[in-house]
């Protein structure tokens, strides 16, 4: 029993974190807000590939490192920390393992790992039919689209841009034209990846807010010295820190199963645990962050809203907390 990270895992996380801080900081994020498909937003993508991030779940034969899900989720939480406006989860943590598992039917794994091609994944998984069409982020730049359990090339889809609350999402409705290639459901991979990003977003929201309330004075004292602020932040930090181990544990279990879509049902309960806790924790952190920032958080002149909106997008993605609790309840025989 050892519930910690080994040196390699920590080294990868820190290297990616440093790269993101340097090449995907706040200025880049703000540029992505007005031009999500533009060169500024995407400049870090090849750097990430050079560092091997897109290939973390790919075998060495495809140019990957096969370091596995524990490393992947650590890296995704770094992407969440900086609110990276790129489809890293969709490409590296959904597209790659689906293609690996399906035997790379389109022969594109190498280009994904090399950072030359981009995968995105359409919504509509894990919720009752909302009457909306499937939508995918990074639609202007994606080369491959996962819809349901199939993969489509860019020429096999029709895209209609729609506005997300988070403009960096570059969202579009996706309609498939052809048959596509069967690659398997992205649900488990997507839910776990989103959970990891949400942990990073949640931690960043707590730490940004802690910094703000230490500095901001009202009534002659720092706002952060008021019990009402302290207690909200202590609760937010607690929920994020209790969600994080569930994400690492689900990643470890995924690695034990070899990330094979065939027997992925065995990890479903751990994935639901991770996603439910992470969605709830990140939503709480977002609400707390905004309330503790006061009006400052409510302006788009300040950067907080970029993290808030990402949480609002990812919390329901690949199944809300409620949906995942229900899935576990069904598994326990508590629902019809």
């Amino acid at each position, binding site marked *: 029993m050892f519930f910690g990270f080994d040196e390699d895992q920590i080294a990868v996380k820190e290297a990616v974190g440093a790269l993101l801080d340097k090449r995907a900081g706040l200025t880049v994020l703000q540029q992505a807000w007005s031009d999500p498909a533009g060169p500024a937003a995407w400049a870090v993508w090849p750097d990430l590939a050079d560092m091997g991030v897109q290939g973390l779940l790919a075998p060495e034969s495809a140019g990957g490192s096969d370091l596995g899900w524990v490393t992947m989720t650590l890296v995704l939480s770094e992407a969440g920390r900086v609110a990276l406006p790129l489809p890293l989860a969709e490409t590296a943590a959904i597209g790659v393992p689906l293609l690996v598992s399906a035997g790379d039917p389109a022969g594109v794994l190498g280009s994904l790992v090399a950072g030359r091609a981009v995968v995105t994944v359409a*919504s*509509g*998984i*894990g*919720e*009752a039919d*909302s*009457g*909306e069409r499937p*939508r995918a982020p990074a639609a202007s730049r994606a080369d491959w689209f996962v819809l349901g359990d199939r993969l489509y090339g860019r020429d096999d889809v029709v895209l209609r841009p*729609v*506005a*997300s*609350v*988070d403009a960096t*999402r570059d*969202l579009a409705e996706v309609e498939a034209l052809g048959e596509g290639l069967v690659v398997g459901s992205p649900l488990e991979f997507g839910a776990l990846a989103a959970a990891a990003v949400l942990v990073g977003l949640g931690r960043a929201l707590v730490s940004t807010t802690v910094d703000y309330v230490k500095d901001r*004075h*009202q*009534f*002659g004292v720092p706002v952060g010295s*008021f019990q*009402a*602020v302290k207690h909200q932040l202590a609760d937010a930090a607690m929920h994020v820190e209790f969600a994080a181990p569930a994400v690492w544990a689900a990643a470890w279990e995924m690695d034990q199963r070899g990330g094979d879509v065939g027997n992925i049902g065995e990890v479903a309960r751990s994935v639901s645990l991770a996603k439910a806790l992470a969605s709830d924790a990140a939503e709480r952190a977002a*609400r707390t962050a*905004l*309330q503790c920032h*006061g*009006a400052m*958080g*409510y*302006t*788009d*002149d300040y950067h907080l*809203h970029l993290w*808030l909106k990402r949480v*609002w*997008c990812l919390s*329901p*993605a*690949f199944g*809300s907390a*409620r949906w995942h609790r*229900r899935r576990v309840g069904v598994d326990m025989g508590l629902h019809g």
Partner: protein
Amino acid sequence: MDLTWSRADEDFRAGARSWLEANVPRPALPSGDTSEGFARHLEWERHLFENRWSVVSWPEEYGGRGASLWQWLIFEEEYYRAGAPQRVTQNGIFLLAPTVFEFGTPEQQQRILPRMAAAEDLWCQGWSEPGAGSDLAGITSRAEPVDGGWALTGQKIWTTRGAFCTHLFGLFRTDPDSTRHRGLTYFLVPLDAPGVTVRGFGRLDGDEGFAEVFFDGVVVAEEAVLGGVGQGWSVAMATTGSERGLTLRSPGRFSAVVTRLVDLARRSADPGGHPDPLLADQVVRGWMEAEAYRLFTLQAVTALAGGARPGAESSLNKIWWSELDIHLHETALALRGDAAELDDAWMRGFEFSLSGPIYAGTNEIQRNIAAERLLGLPRS
């Protein structure tokens, strides 16, 4: 106890309903917090005024109908029910006007109120400063006496729709040696005066709803003072009571959201014809909390109609409606599943609801007020 409406009130309701049905713009106007939308809203406001629906509870001489508080509630209920546009004049009508009625000179009342009702003068609120948000007493903007008036210097922030308005009401420090809430004075300032600079900036939802207003030796006349030099705090508190109390958040606002939410829930049904039971429960909870708000308000208006003054229970009111508003919108987004992220009316409403616990005195401040003034707990 009598929870029925009088015949006169029912007639008033019928009149409001039929006028609104015939006049509310379709499709809905664009957001009033953009410059294009604001202009469209002004047309609507002036149309309201011309038909004497702009300020129903004001005396007829100022453009109102002399309607009772009950009728005002009825009008609001019908207004929200009809899906009529957000009132871009509300900061003047609901926040400044009660103060002018109470503290203004007859000259000020004549000069200010009719043009406000007609949406000729558009008023924004200059309360917050970069260093004084929830802590209003930390204001540092100052007014210095000059010949025939005052010179204003300083900066206001978070001024809702400041970039679109013509006038500002706000607090300035007239006694330079004063601290905290002493030595403040309430001023009425035209925004086209020399030395005023207004910079609009965006809200969370992307609308340009906020402004910073800079004052660089802006000269105003003696008549710009409302309620006496050095009396600014107590005059402002009256306005603040109004903002936190009944006026901004009539129950009809939330009942209208509940109606839309129930409709959304019915349309979000699974193949069996029903929404997720957990979300159905949240919808009913929302209906219950909106009903409780309506009944609490009826109780409060009964007391006001009997001569009571609004008290610290308005803090409870503000906590309740602001949390209710978030709950209703969160439930709607949950019903939307992962389509919640679309930048539509529910998401816009959700974003706006999140400002509820922040503006007009954060809910943390309101809980302090309720604990200290209603429950009698000791100050920290």
